[in-house]
């Protein structure tokens, strides 16, 4: 990378500035819906960042990542329904449950390769989906309304929409930072090496399986936290948020923005969700345009949108 002012960095900086100033725009125009929309964007971007860690950098294509959003969300929802409203308990629980699930799934799945890995991660996610449907007490298929957002005992009031927006923004930036530190460490370089040639990594003596598993667990935990945020944002959690097509959405957002780039997931999420929203206002048939757009990105834009900004050797 030659110097800071590359086109990609300029766009990223501009995007970050716009996101930071968005609540001011909302306050000026009185349009609360924009902030609601973008809070959702930030939360899903965080989920995309976690997926990028394993999929983009690690080459582990997980088709069941939406399960962690659900696990985190249900942790908050179930605890809230049972009377435990404190965020200090709910959020760590969300992270812990997701990390544990990732540990189990990773331990069983990381021995498989290619499309088999894709399918087995999908299988586990669908299992969680069906368990959630079977939970009659927590709404089952109808979902669970969360009447009170997580309480932090006076520290921060999540009902304040602007505060909640900035909290999500801060957590998103923190995850991007965390991920980029991880992938640039020796651990991260091993993971990236394993993506292109696992045998060689193992030959060097690196415990590839263990590293991959750690990566997988961290990604799951991060996504679980995003799930807790999502449940707070919508005051509602349902099994539908874990259906395989939602994992597909996450994958699209990551690939769209550019695999293995720090801000790619954010760019991809913003683009995808905004495009969806804008198209649905302009036309009655948004899919007619969104679908082929995705196809064209897959065919022509190697490395997604972020990849457009730099010529990468094939």
């Amino acid at each position: 990378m030659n110097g800071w002012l590359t086109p990609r960095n300029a766009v990223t900086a501009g995007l970050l500035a716009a996101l930071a100033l968005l609540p001011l725009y909302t306050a000026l125009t009185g349009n609360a819906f924009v902030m609601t929309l973008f809070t959702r964007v930030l939360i899903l971007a965080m989920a995309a960042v976690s997926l990028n860690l394993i999929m983009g950098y690690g080459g582990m294509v997980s088709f069941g990542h939406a399960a962690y959003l659900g696990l985190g969300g249900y942790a908050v929802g179930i605890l809230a329904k049972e009377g435990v409203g404190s965020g200090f308990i709910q959020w760590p629980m969300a992270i812990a449950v997701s990390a544990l699930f990732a540990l189990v799934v990773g331990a069983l799945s990381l021995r498989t390769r290619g499309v088999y890995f894709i399918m087995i991660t999908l299988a586990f996610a669908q299992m969680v989906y069906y368990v959630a449907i079977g939970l009659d007490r927590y709404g089952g298929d109808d979902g669970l309304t969360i009447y009170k957002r997580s309480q932090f005992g006076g520290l921060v009031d999540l009902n304040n929409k602007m505060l909640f927006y900035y909290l999500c923004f801060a957590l998103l930036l923190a995850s991007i930072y965390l991920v980029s530190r991880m992938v640039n460490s020796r651990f991260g370089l091993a993971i990236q090496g394993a993506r292109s040639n696992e045998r060689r990594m193992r030959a060097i003596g690196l415990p590839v399986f263990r590293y991959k598993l750690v990566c997988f667990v961290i990604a799951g935990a991060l996504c679980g936290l995003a799930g807790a945020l999502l449940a707070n944002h919508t005051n509602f959690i349902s099994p539908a948020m874990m259906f395989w097509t939602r994992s597909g959405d996450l994958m699209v957002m990551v690939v769209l923005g550019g695999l293995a780039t720090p801000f790619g997931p954010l760019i991809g999420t913003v683009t995808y969700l905004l495009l969806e929203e804008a198209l649905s206002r302009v036309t009655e048939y948004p899919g007619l345009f969104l679908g082929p757009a995705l196809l064209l990105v897959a065919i022509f834009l190697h490395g997604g949108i972020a990849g457009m900004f730099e010529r990468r050797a094939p």
Partner: protein
Amino acid sequence: MIRPLIAGTAALALVASPAMAQQKTVKIGFISTFSGPAAAIGNDMRNSFELGLDHLGRKIGGLPVEVVYEDDEIKPEVGVQKTQKLIESDKVDFIVGYIWSNVILASLKPLVDSKTMTVVTNAGASQLAGELCSPYVFSTSWQNDQTPAAVGLYMNQKGVKTAFLMGPNYAAGKDMLAGVQTTFKGQIVGQELTRWPDQLDFSAELSKARAAKPDAIFVFYPGGAGVQFVTQYAQSGLKGQIPLYTAFTIDDLSLPRLKDLAVGVPGAQEWVNDLPNDANKKFVADFKAKYKTTPSFYGAQTYDAVALIDSAVTAVKGDLSNKEGMRKEMEKADFKSVRGNFRFGNNHIPIQNFYLQDADKTADGGYALHTVSLIVKDDQDKFHDKCPMK
């Protein structure tokens, strides 16, 4: 490189268009289903609502009206998002609609938190009639248990001793099966809840029903699923062997597709298209003239919502911020309903009659539903005690 930037800005601009100031227009948000097989229901409701507005000269309480239609895709999570959009982005004064119990339950919190006057024109979740009742939410339909309870009464009258129950596995399905058991005096020899909304193959459950050898089968399958069920019931050979009693499974929308299969399969309803009051005659006649088909009960309930809202806005003389005043007026149910006049219970759910309906062939070779008899008069739901409102 510039392109995503431009696209993003354009998208942002489209999304961020500030909501219009309220210039004395009544803005109504309408949530229903406009995709998938249930779109037929949503369209019927929209058509009836539009007809109701036409009958009032496109004015509510003398003020011009604007309606924003949104599609919930039968999904609770989409319904709550669209509800929030109507409240926050479109800043509507009223919200009307909701076919599905699970969608209204998911959407309830934003509605009540924002104090938006809501008229639910179909969904009848028991929680809405009980502990979750709200001063801002009214129903022009019923509570889910009422209709199947009426069917249960009818089954007693017919001397049915054993029954097999089937329904979809969501809030309304469970309410329906519970409802028929509140009045049915016989024995339940089996119950099945099927996956909703994607399970449309009932072969396994029908085989079970056959094996249980009941005197009768009771089902609740709304919309397109109703067509699938009644068709498969006939295909399996059960028609003619074991009688079928229904709630909300055969209606004016599914009848043209079922034709002969619907004859002899009775159901209960609070409104039938041939009820002899003036408002109904006008509604059905004008609907047939404008849309060339018969309206369904979904439409009838939605048509009533127009008159209900009109009475409220008229009473407060167009001051839409006077929610208390509108609520008081709406509680009087002071309008001409197409089902005949009714009153509201303390929980804003109608206290009304239920009729037995059946299908038969008409003179011109088509099929129509007609009233067979009155099952119960001025029926009130069993959940009104749980509602804290007086």
